[in-house]
């Protein structure tokens, strides 16, 4: 791949290994993971269940320390959670007692103990961005899963992070909402150009959203098995999927994931 070597990648994994102590003994989840993610790049991570995708993300987030190797963000070794990273979880897990606006500003309140007027205005803008401005004073109680996840995305964007980590953010949604959210995320990304690490189980979602797709091998000792560029131009629509090179990519991915050809 034609990476300009003068530019430090946004995220770099160097020979990362992750071992867990489990009841059944040591579990080598990740081994020899090498990967560079460029600034403003949208990366999708695919891989068999339990291969260590979430673990990869937790290491970038500074929530887990790798057993060996290093992960650096903008050239700095990750030793603790950083301020320039936002996380969207699989389940939105909003605070049921707080309004949508309070949920979006929660990270600030939690970190600093108070929330400024500017941050509230920004929360308002973000809720507008995800199409929920009219509901900002409601509590999440009766919102649909899609709406809750929108709030989760707004919450992750509040401190304007350079890097957005998303761990299967749409997997709890129904198929239609899921597709809709995919397009919305693409719009948000085109507007804000964050570096995104997007974990998913959906090949179509990965192909539609990502610049590059990383396929992890089977665990234990999972590593990067394939690193594929997505050929279609942006913005991608349903029509992009009809391009023959896209269909080739999809069937190739289906092939390696379904037949467990990933070594």
């Amino acid at each position, binding site marked *: 791949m034609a990476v300009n070597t003068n530019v430090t990648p946004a995220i770099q994994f160097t020979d990362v290994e992750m071992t867990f102590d489990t009841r059944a003994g040591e579990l080598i989840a990740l081994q020899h993971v090498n990967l560079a993610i460029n600034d403003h790049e949208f990366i999708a991570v695919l891989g068999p269940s339990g291969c260590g995708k979430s673990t990869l993300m937790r290491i970038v987030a500074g929530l887990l320390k790798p057993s060996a190797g290093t992960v650096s963000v903008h050239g700095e070794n990750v030793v603790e959670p950083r301020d320039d990273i936002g996380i969207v979880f699989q389940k939105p897990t909003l605070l049921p007692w707080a309004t949508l606006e309070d949920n979006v500003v929660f990270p600030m309140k939690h*970190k600093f103990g108070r929330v400024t007027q500017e941050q509230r205005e920004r929360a308002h803008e973000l809720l507008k961005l995800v199409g929920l401005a009219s509901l900002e004073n409601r509590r999440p109680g009766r919102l649909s899963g899609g709406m809750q996840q929108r709030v989760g995305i707004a919450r992750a964007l509040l401190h304007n992070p350079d890097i957005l980590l998303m761990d299967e953010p749409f997997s709890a949604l129904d198929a239609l909402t899921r597709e809709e959210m995919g397009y919305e995320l693409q719009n948000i990304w085109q507007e804000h150009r964050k570096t995104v690490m997007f974990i998913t189980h959906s090949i179509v979602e990965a192909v539609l959203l990502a610049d590059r797709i990383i396929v992890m091998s089977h665990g234990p000792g999972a590593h990067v098995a394939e690193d594929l560029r997505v050929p279609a131009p942006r913005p991608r629509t349903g029509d992009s999927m009809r391009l023959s090179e896209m269909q080739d990519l999809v069937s190739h991915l289906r092939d390696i994931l379904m037949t467990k050809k990933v070594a």
Partner: protein
Amino acid sequence: MTATLTRVNRVPGLLPGLTFLIILVLWETSTRVFTIPTFLLPAPSRILEGFDAVTVSRWLAHAWATLRVAMLGFLTAIVVSLPLAIALTRFKLVSSGIYPLLVVIQSTPIVAVAPIIIVTMGSGDVSRVLITFMISFFPLVVSMTTGMKATPDELIELSHSLKAPAIREFTQIRIPYAIPYIFSGLKISVTLSVIGAVVAEFVAAEKGIGYFIQFSTSLFKIPQAWAGLGILVLMSLTLFQIIAQTQRYFFPWSLPRESK
């Protein structure tokens, strides 16, 4: 018919009120029809007369004595439970070291320990509050700990990823998350605190409703003992309702959907 039933059900307190009234009527008539002796089961009308046995101010003094001990024990239980639950949630060592001990305390019949406590600690307020505390605090610790541990992992990870002060993980996430659990615990605990106060009065007291009931039965004044019992029930119900309404008013989001 079903339509009327659902409409009846919608008026709060109507159905239980009606049931209670029917029971009272059945009770009154059966005591008269079968001429049940008063010391076995006094009729509701006789119990009502039992309220006249002492003056209103005496009743109030007895009720206050019981309520005071119950509330002091209940508050102590809250004050002790909260930090204990936080420690149980936060530190594995505390959890594995203390939890079994708590279960042992809970399995001990405090009613049997009460006389021992009175002997070692004297027959003052401290002993009574201690007995009440011991009877009422366990459900609180358990519910608080369960609630704090039920907090979704994602929120805790969010907290860690923000490098927020550890105390805020509790004040802003875990404790609010535990609110529904805490209120279930409070409801159980507050009624137990009345039981605790009465148990303490049975063992050593010279006032209080528990003392009054024991004193009355020893003189075979059964209707007034029943009247005392009625006051205890009323006290428990009121305390329970205060807790329930506090939750409804201040934490409406924590109620299950049907009961909103």
